[in-house]
């Protein structure tokens, strides 16, 4: 399916019409924001635009298309394939991942019970974050992830602020590890895809290319998934997105003790930043990771600022290299 069709069909009819008129190329769109009673916003090539009723993109809010409650409700129907009940668990966490790996952030009124989020109602805010698969974006990073030319894969942590491309980078690293690259043999990779963002599985089949030797546990909690993969699929490398909890740390310790290599991502702006965080500080202190790949909020998503070893010694950096560099 064409990417434009894949994205546009999740919106209410009127929004489809407006976006269709705007002739937006969804390959360059990062986000589309819908808020009840507020203008329709598109983040296009890193710049924010209002979309007018006539379908023009502009920076002034005049004549902008205002999203109505009905449009938002209709959009939620399409996003959930008419089945909100099938996304109860995801809604409790505040997002839904749809076909193509696009993540829809959801906000509204929380129904709480015993301090736990039971459900969400009056959903009034949506943030459609489009997933981008960029084949080859990890080319420049790959040589740092192996222990010598024919050596093992190193335990690697990708550190990045939100919206800087860590999931895209991880996806390509998985693909290259799995397929093999620059004369290195491919390895069996197990992916725990808790939010369906890496493989973007649809009815169990990955929509993104994660390589020929990759097994995916889709929508599975990370810590449990890592244990399951070790016991059942015998992976040589395990990849997970957005670690951070103590439970994750315990599972990571287990994975590493089993002789399996780990590639993971985490939210953070620098090595110093992650050393401030309780669980990550312990991981860094124990030198659990051999490589840190730090992404920065440069002019483009996916700008690698620095690559460091387990001690934090810079191996590469300063000028930065962007995807495809």
């Amino acid at each position, binding site marked *: 399916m064409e990417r434009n069709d894949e994205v546009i069909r999740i919106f209410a009819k009127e929004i489809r019409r407006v976006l269709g008129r705007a002739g937006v190329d969804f390959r360059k769109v990062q986000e589309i924001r819908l808020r009840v009673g507020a203008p329709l916003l598109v983040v296009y090539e890193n710049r924010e635009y209002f979309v007018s009723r006539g379908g023009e993109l502009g920076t002034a809010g005049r004549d902008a298309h205002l999203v109505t409650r009905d449009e938002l409700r209709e959009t939620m129907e399409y996003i959930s*394939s*008419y089945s909100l*009940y099938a996304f109860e668990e995801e809604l409790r966490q505040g997002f839904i991942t749809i076909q193509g790996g696009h993540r829809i952030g959801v906000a509204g009124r929380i129904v709480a019970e015993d301090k736990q989020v039971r459900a969400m109602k009056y959903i009034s805010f949506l943030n459609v974050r489009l997933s981008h698969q960029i084949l080859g974006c990890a080319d420049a990073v790959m040589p740092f992830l192996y222990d010598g030319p024919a050596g093992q894969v190193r335990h690697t942590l990708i550190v990045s602020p939100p919206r800087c491309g860590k999931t895209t980078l991880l996806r390509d690293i998985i693909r290259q590890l799995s397929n093999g690259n620059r004369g290195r043999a491919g390895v069996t990779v197990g992916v725990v895809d808790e939010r369906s963002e890496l493989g973007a599985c649809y009815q169990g089949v990955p929509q993104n290319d994660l390589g020929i030797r990759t097994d995916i546990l889709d929508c599975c909690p990370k810590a449990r998934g890592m244990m399951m993969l070790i016991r059942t699929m015998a992976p040589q490398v395990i990849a997970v997105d957005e670690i951070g909890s103590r439970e994750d740390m315990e599972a990571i310790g287990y994975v590493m003790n089993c002789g399996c290599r780990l590639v993971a991502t985490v939210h953070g702006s620098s090595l110093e930043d992650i050393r401030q965080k309780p669980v990550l500080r312990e991981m860094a202190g124990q030198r659990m990771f051999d490589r840190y790949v730090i992404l920065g909020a440069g002019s483009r998503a996916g700008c690698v600022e620095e690559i460091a070893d387990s001690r934090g010694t810079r191996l590469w950096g300063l000028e930065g290299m962007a995807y495809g560099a």
Partner: protein
Amino acid sequence: MVLKIVGSLLVTCSCGALGLWKAGQWKDHLGMLEQLRKMIVLLRSEILYAHTPLGEALGHVGRKSEGVLAGLFGAVEERTMQQQGELFYIIWREEVEKRKKEMLLSDRERQELIAFGEHLGYLDLEMQEHTVALYLEQLEMSIRFYREHEREQSRLYASLGIMGGLFLSIMMC
């Protein structure tokens, strides 16, 4: 005279056959309601235990069945998957109405089936459970009614047919 006898026999037989056909329709109607109940029970399992999205769940259940109801479930699956900007209850209603003649359901039963689709997919699993439970109860009532009256209705239609045929024959002679 021979012609009269042959004519009377033909009229009696045709009226008798009409009566038997009507009695058979009662049975078919009951069969359809029972098949629908079975499909709704399967749908409930898909929704409640596998958390399968509605379109996909209807497709799974449709493929396990046959006849006009399988066609209904399959068509709804296809249209929901296309996501052409139609709301679910509109798709459901249109597809039910399209099969109005083949479905052998009474007006009341068809309206209940349409109303069932109006609430499917809305809100959480608990809501789905209640929606399905309510519809199953309605189906159960219809099935009970048809079962209770099956024998007497079959006899009634068959006898009416034959007796009507005899009556017409006598009148014509």
